[in-house]
C-alpha cells in the first residue's frame, strides 16, 4: 500500500511530506472516493473560510497554509489587544490596535510562499448567502456562541438538495483553559450547533435581589457595581469594558461595597474577569484544538483518510487538566432542532401562572433556547414583537397577561424569532409544570 505512487503538488520538494500522505492511500483510505492524482490540484483550487483571527484563528490560518490550501479568507472585526499576545502568535506589540484579520493574513502570506489570504475586517452578519456560497469549507475559531449559531443557521439555510455545492461542511473549535472541543457538521445531514446547544449552557445568573441586598461573594459586589451602581451614577457616557479607567471605577465601587459587607476577595483582576466574562486561554490548547480542526479539513478535502462527521463520530472533547483525556463520539441530530429539524422542541418547566413577560424573560437562560430578544407568535397570531417600535408598542400589553389569558395551553406550539438569528423560526412546544 505504502509503495503507491506519490503525485506531487506544484512545488514537489516543498510539499514532499504532505504529498506522501495525502496523495497515497493508507490502510484506512476509502478507495471509492480517493483519487491521489487529483488531490493536490483540487486542494489548491478550493476556497476556505476561516471565521475568527484570534487564538484559534491564528493557528487555523497557519495550519491551513501548511496543509496545502492556497485560497483562504478570514473574517474578524476585532483589533489586537495586549492580552492577545500570550497566544495569538501572528501579532507583536507594535500591532496592538490594528485589525486582527489584516495583520494575521499578511503575516501568514509572508511566511508561507504561494498562499493567498483575504482578510475581512467586519462582522459575519455583514455578508449574505452569496458570499458564503463561494467557499467549499468553513472553519470557526470563535469565542461567542451567538456567532456560531448564526453561521450554523446560515449554512443550513443555504442547503439546496438539488445542488451538491450548496452543502458547506462546518468545522468548529472552542477552548477554555486546558480544555476544548472540535466538531464537524455536515449541514442538514449531521447534528448541528443548535442540536448541541444544551452542551454549552449559559452560566446561571445571580438573582438581582442577591446583588441588591444580600451579597456574599466578591463576584456579587462586582456585578452590583456593574449592573446597579453604574446605571445609577453613569460616571462615563457609555461603559467601555476595555477602558482601564472604567474598570477601575467598577473595581473601586465593588471594593467599597465589599468592605461594607466584610466580603473578602475583590481585586482588579476579578472585576475585569467578571465584567468581561473572561475565559482563560493559552497557546498550547489553541494549538491542539485548531490543529484537530485543520486535520479534519485536510481529510475532508483530500479523502486520504476517514474524517470526523460522517458516518460515526463527529465531536471530540479534549481535557488536559488531569492527565490528557479525549472523548470522541457521535452527537445525534435532533428531530426537534429548531434549525435543522422538523419538529418543535419541548420547552419544559413553564408555569401556567406565568405572564407572557415571564415566558419571554425565561428564553435567555434556558439551555435549549438562549435567546435574548425573543419575539413570540402562536397559531399565526403575534403575541409579542421586539421591533419595529410600533408593533412593540401594540403588543406590549400582552406581556402582562398570563399564558392562560392569552389562550396558550399545555402542549401548545409557539414560534420564536430573535434578531440575532434572522433566518430562523425556533419552534417550541410549551410543557406546563404539573
Amino acid at each position, binding site marked *: 500500500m505504502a509503495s503507491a505512487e506519490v503525485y506531487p503538488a506544484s512545488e514537489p520538494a516543498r510539499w514532499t511530506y504532505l504529498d506522501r500522505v495525502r496523495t497515497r492511500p493508507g490502510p484506512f483510505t476509502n478507495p471509492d472516493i480517493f483519487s491521489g492524482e487529483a488531490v493536490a490540484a483540487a486542494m489548491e483550487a478550493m476556497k476556505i473560510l476561516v471565521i475568527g483571527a484570534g487564538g484559534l484563528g491564528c493557528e487555523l490560518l497557519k495550519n491551513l497554509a501548511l496543509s496545502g490550501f492556497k485560497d483562504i479568507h478570514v473574517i474578524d472585526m476585532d483589533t489586537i489587544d495586549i492580552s492577545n499576545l500570550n497566544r495569538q502568535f501572528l501579532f507583536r506589540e507594535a500591532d496592538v490596535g490594528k485589525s486582527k484579520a489584516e495583520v494575521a493574513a499578511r503575516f501568514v502570506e509572508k511566511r508561507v510562499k504561494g498562499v493567498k489570504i483575504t482578510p475581512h475586517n467586519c462582522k459575519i452578519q455583514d455578508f449574505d448567502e452569496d458570499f458564503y456560497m463561494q467557499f467549499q469549507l468553513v472553519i470557526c475559531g470563535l469565542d461567542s456562541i451567538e456567532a456560531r449559531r448564526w453561521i450554523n443557521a446560515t449554512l443550513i439555510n443555504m442547503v439546496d438538495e438539488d445542488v451538491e455545492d450548496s452543502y458547506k461542511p462546518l468545522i468548529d473549535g472552542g477552548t477554555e483553559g486546558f480544555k476544548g472541543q472540535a466538531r464537524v457538521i455536515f449541514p442538514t445531514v449531521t447534528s448541528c450547533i443548535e442540536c448541541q446547544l444544551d452542551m454549552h449552557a449559559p452560566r446561571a445568573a445571580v438573582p438581582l435581589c442577591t446583588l441588591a441586598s444580600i451579597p456574599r461573594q466578591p463576584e456579587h459586589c462586582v456585578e452590583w457595581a456593574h449592573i446597579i451602581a453604574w446605571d445609577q451614577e453613569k460616571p462615563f457616557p457609555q461603559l467601555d469594558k476595555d477602558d482601564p479607567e472604567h474598570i477601575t471605577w467598577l473595581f473601586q465601587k465593588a471594593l467599597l461595597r465589599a468592605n461594607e459587607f466584610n466580603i473578602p476577595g475583590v481585586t482588579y483582576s476579578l472585576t475585569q474577569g467578571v465584567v468581561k466574562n473572561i475565559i482563560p486561554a493559552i497557546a498550547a490548547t489553541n494549538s491542539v484544538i485548531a490543529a*484537530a480542526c485543520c486535520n479534519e479539513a485536510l481529510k475532508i478535502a483530500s479523502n486520504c483518510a476517514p474524517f470526523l462527521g460522517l458516518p460515526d463520530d463527529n465531536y471530540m472533547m479534549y481535557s488536559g487538566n488531569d492527565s490528557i483525556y479525549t472523548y470522541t463520539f457521535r452527537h445525534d441530530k435532533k428531530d426537534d432542532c429548531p434549525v435543522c429539524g422538523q419538529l418543535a422542541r419541548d420547552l419544559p418547566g413553564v408555569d401556567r401562572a406565568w405572564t407572557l413577560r415571564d415566558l419571554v424573560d425565561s428564553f435567555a437562560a434556558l439551555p435549549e433556547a438562549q435567546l435574548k430578544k425573543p419575539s413570540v407568535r402562536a397559531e399565526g397570531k403575534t403575541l409579542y414583537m421586539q421591533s419595529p417600535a410600533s408593533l412593540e408598542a401594540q403588543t406590549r400589553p400582552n406581556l402582562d397577561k398570563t399564558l392562560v389569558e392569552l389562550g396558550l395551553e399545555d402542549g401548545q406550539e409557539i414560534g420564536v424569532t430573535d434578531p440575532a438569528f434572522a433566518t430562523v423560526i425556533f419552534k417550541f412546544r410549551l410543557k406546563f409544570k404539573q
Partner: protein
Amino acid sequence: MTEIIMSQTPPILHGPSEKERKYDRQLRLWAASGQAALESANILLVNSGAGTVGAETLKNLVLPGIGRFAIYDETRVSEADLGVNFFLDDSCLGQSRSQSLTKLIVELNPDVQGTGYPNEDAKTLESLLAGSPVFTAIMYTHPIRPDQLSQLEAYGQQHRTPLVAIHSAGFYSSFQINLPGAFPIVDTHPDETATTDLRLLTPWPELVAFAEELTKNIDSLDNFEHGHLPYVVILLHYLQQWKAAHDGKYPATYKEKTELRKVVQSAARTNNPEGGEENFDEAAAAVLKTLVPPSLPSGLKEVFEHEQTDPVSLHRSGFWLIADAVKQFYERHQCLPLPGKLPDMKAQSKVYIQLQGIYKAKARRDAAEILQIVQTAPGGEHVDPAEVDLFCKNAAFVKLINASGGAGSSDARISRADRLKSAAALEFANDETAALTLAPLSLLPIYLALQATAHVGTTSTSTSNDSSSSSSSSSSADEILATIAEQVPGAEKHERVVQAAHEVARAAGGELHNVAALTGGMVAQEMIKIVTKQYIPVDNTCVYDGIGGRCQVLRL
C-alpha cells in the same frame, strides 16, 4: 469605618502592570506562582527528524514566557522543511536549522532568551550538556541518534531532569514523559464542584453552637429569616433532630438519607408568596452529596503509603515533611485538615460571612496544628508555612505521579521492555472484548509502529544531514513489523498492528503539520504542568490517532 475604607481604596488607575496585562489570560489558570516557575525555566529541545513538532511545542512555551530555551539541531534547512515548519522561511534555506528556528521563535516574545546549537560555544550535544547551566527539562524528537539519546538519559539521571520523548509521523504521534522519580503535585486544580467539604457529620463546637443559635426558635422565625437560613445550618439542625430520634446515629444508608431529605423538604414553608423556600431546596439537594463520612482519597493514600515503602528518601522536600505531618494529623483525628472553603448559598450577608469565618478559623487551626508537627520533624523548621497552607487546602486532591518510578533506575531499561510486553498483553486482551464493553480500541499498535522507527535514518553520523530523509532511510511496513516482533513477540500478527505499520510507512518519516501542531500543543501543556507543578501531568505515555481523532494515555 470610613477611614478604613478610604485607606483600602487604591489610587485612581491603579491597574495591572504591562506584564500582567499581557499574561492575563494565563495568570487566571496558574497564577503568579506558576508564572514565576515558568519564567525561571530553562528548556532544551534536541530537534531531530522532520523537526516541526519540536518547534511547535517550543512556540507554545515561548508565548506564555518560559525563561530561556536552547535548540540543538544538526540539520540544515531544506525545501521540505518549508512545507511543514512555520518557523522557517525561504531565507533560511541551507542555513543551520537550529539557528533559523531560534531566530523566528524568539521573536514571539521579547521576554524570552533562546540559543541555537551547535554553535561556536558548543559544537556537540555532549559539550552543550556539559557546559550549560542545568536544564529544567529536556525534550527530544524522534527519530534520534541512539548515542545522543544515551547522553540525554545519562544527563537526566545525573541531574534529575525530566525528559520528554516526542514522535510525530503522518497521522500518528506519541510522547512519553520520563520523570526522575515520584512527582507529587499539591495544586492539582480539581473541579470546583468536587471540593465542597462541609463536615456536617463531624461538626466542631463552634459550628454546632452557631447552628443551634440560629435554629433554636426555628418555627417562630419570620418568613424572611426562615427563608435565609444557610443550608448548612438547616442540615445541622435536622441532623441533630435525626440523631436524637435514632440512638445518636446519623443517617448512613441511602434509604435513611432520602428519608432525611424528605424531612428537610417538608420543613420548607409554602404559605409564602414564592410558594417555597430556595434555601430548603438547596439543603435538600445537598443531603446526598454532602452527608458523607470522612475518608482517605486514593491519591493521598498513595502518598501516605509511598512514604512507608520508601523511607530513606533522598529528597525529603517540604512536600514529604508536610505529607508526613498530615498523615499524623489524620491518624490523630480520623479526618483531613479542613480546606475551609464555603460554597455560596442563599443567606443574609452577615450570617454567611460569620459562617464563612467559622470554617476559615477551623481551617487555620488545623493548618497550625500541622505546621507544628512539621516543625518538630528534622528539617521541618525550613518549611514555608505557605506551603503547609496550600497542602491543607488541597489535601484531598494531592496526587503522586510516577509513584513507582525513580527507585532502582539501574535496571529501568529492562523493566521498561517488560512493562511494554505486559501492557501489550493487557491492551490486546481488552480489544478482544471491546465490542461488548463499548470501550474504544487500544492505540498501543500506533505506539509500537512509531517506536519501531524511533532511530530510523539516524545511523549516519554526518553533521550536515539534509533533513528531508530520502525513502531509503525510512522503513517499509515489513521492516516496522519485524522490529515490533523483536520488541513484543506476537504483536506483529495483530491486524491493527499491521495497519498501523502501513500507516507509519506511508508517512516515511515525514510530519503532517496539523499532527505536529496538535502534538506540540499537548506536550506544551504537559511541560507547563511539570514546570509549574500545577494540574496533573500524563503518567507517562500519550498516543494520538489523527485518523480516529482521539488520544489514549498508557503507562509504559
